[in-house]
């Protein structure tokens, strides 16, 4: 491996540029996906059988399909139905669908952890259904879901590497490109891997800490 430190340093700005794109895609997918997950979680608990069935099917399709297939379906498939998305928006839409399906299960578990007495109390003091959700169920339920949602966010950040297939110049694509122009695949990819690790390892330690604190709260 005849790569000098200068080479590595000269690649770094390019790679961090890719990292920024990965971060933007992560943020976009979470901002779209988590509200979608909340809607699906509420839909799965709805009284209407039609709505419940529809949401269940959406969740199962979203969780059962590999994110890569979903991305290719949206990026390469939708144009044939007359809907062309840029690689940026295709990436965000695909990962947001994935996020929505997975987080709906996390949020549903959180909402179900709210003791039933809380809902009964809300009905007893005459809150409307919307107020019951807004002031009683969601503040308690979402709090329980936070650690798992944070953990999932790390997975979505890692998932942005899939956007390699849709020609989005994120971290992995940049590393691959450096590899193909310099024929130094190994050091270039390793450097990208280090960048992923530098972000994901502290992040998962942090999530672990949040989980333990949440555990304290739950045990009180």
């Amino acid at each position: 491996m005849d790569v000098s430190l200068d080479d590595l340093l000269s690649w770094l700005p390019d790679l961090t540029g890719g990292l920024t794109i990965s971060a933007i895609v992560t943020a976009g997918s979470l901002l779209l996906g988590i509200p979608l997950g909340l809607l699906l979680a509420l839909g799965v608990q709805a009284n209407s059988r039609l709505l419940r069935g529809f949401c269940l099917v959406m969740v199962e399709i979203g969780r059962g399909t590999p994110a890569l297939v979903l991305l290719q379906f949206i990026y390469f498939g939708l144009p044939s139905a007359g809907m062309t998305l840029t690689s940026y928006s295709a990436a965000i839409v695909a990962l947001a669908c994935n996020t929505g399906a997975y987080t709906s299960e996390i949020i549903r578990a959180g909402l179900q952890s709210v003791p039933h007495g809380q809902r009964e109390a809300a009905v007893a003091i005459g809150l409307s259904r919307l107020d019951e959700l807004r002031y009683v169920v969601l503040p308690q339920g979402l709090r329980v879901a936070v650690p798992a949602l944070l953990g999932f966010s790390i997975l979505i950040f890692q998932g942005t590497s899939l956007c390699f297939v849709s020609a989005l110049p994120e971290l992995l694509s940049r590393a691959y490109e450096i590899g193909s122009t310099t024929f130094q695949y190994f050091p270039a990819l390793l450097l990208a891997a280090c960048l992923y690790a530098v972000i994901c390892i502290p992040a998962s330690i942090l999530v672990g800490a949040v989980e333990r604190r949440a555990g304290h709260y739950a045990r009180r």
Partner: protein
Amino acid sequence: MTGDVLTILAGLPWTLALTAAALALGVVLGVPVALARRSRLLPVWLAAAVFIAVTRSIPPLVWLFIIFFGLGTGYIQISPFVAATAAFGLIATANMAEIYRGGLMAIQHGQWDAAEVLGLGRIHTFADVIAPQAVRVSLPSAASYAIGLLKDTATASTIGVIELTFQANQLAQRNFSGLYAFGIAAAIYILVSLPVAWLARSADFYLRAKVAR
């Protein structure tokens, strides 16, 4: 229509083989890593912890590329399938080690104490008392991990393993209809993961019934 489905289905054996091979590596190699993670020797414990953290923090696709393009161009000749098996085997090892660790933590301390009182040796205690219970606890998470792994193997299409997603990609490029090709692939993934989930649930039910208290 049936012809297209059959074209994509030709990739199914490769998807299944890759999943099974990686899972087998993980199930076996995960045991020593999980045990090392519980070791009282600091270097051993630290090495296992770092291995697990690093392996899990790097996306599967990056591992695939490091092994296939990184090692494959210049260092050793490696076929796409072998590279994918190595990458997913590595990731499965780290994840299975964490699943085993969770299973071991779920075992009450009294079980170890009782084994010691009975005068069982360390290996005996582990093989006959601890492991059977830990496996039972780990099974549901191992099953959902296996389903996750099945879907993760889709990324192997990028390095040319001729599995489901690769076949869907080829078909999409021939017919200019990605909607259709990837739709079929998605349906196959869902249909395959259903029996796996069902099998895991009934295995869990069976094992639980055997120790019902």
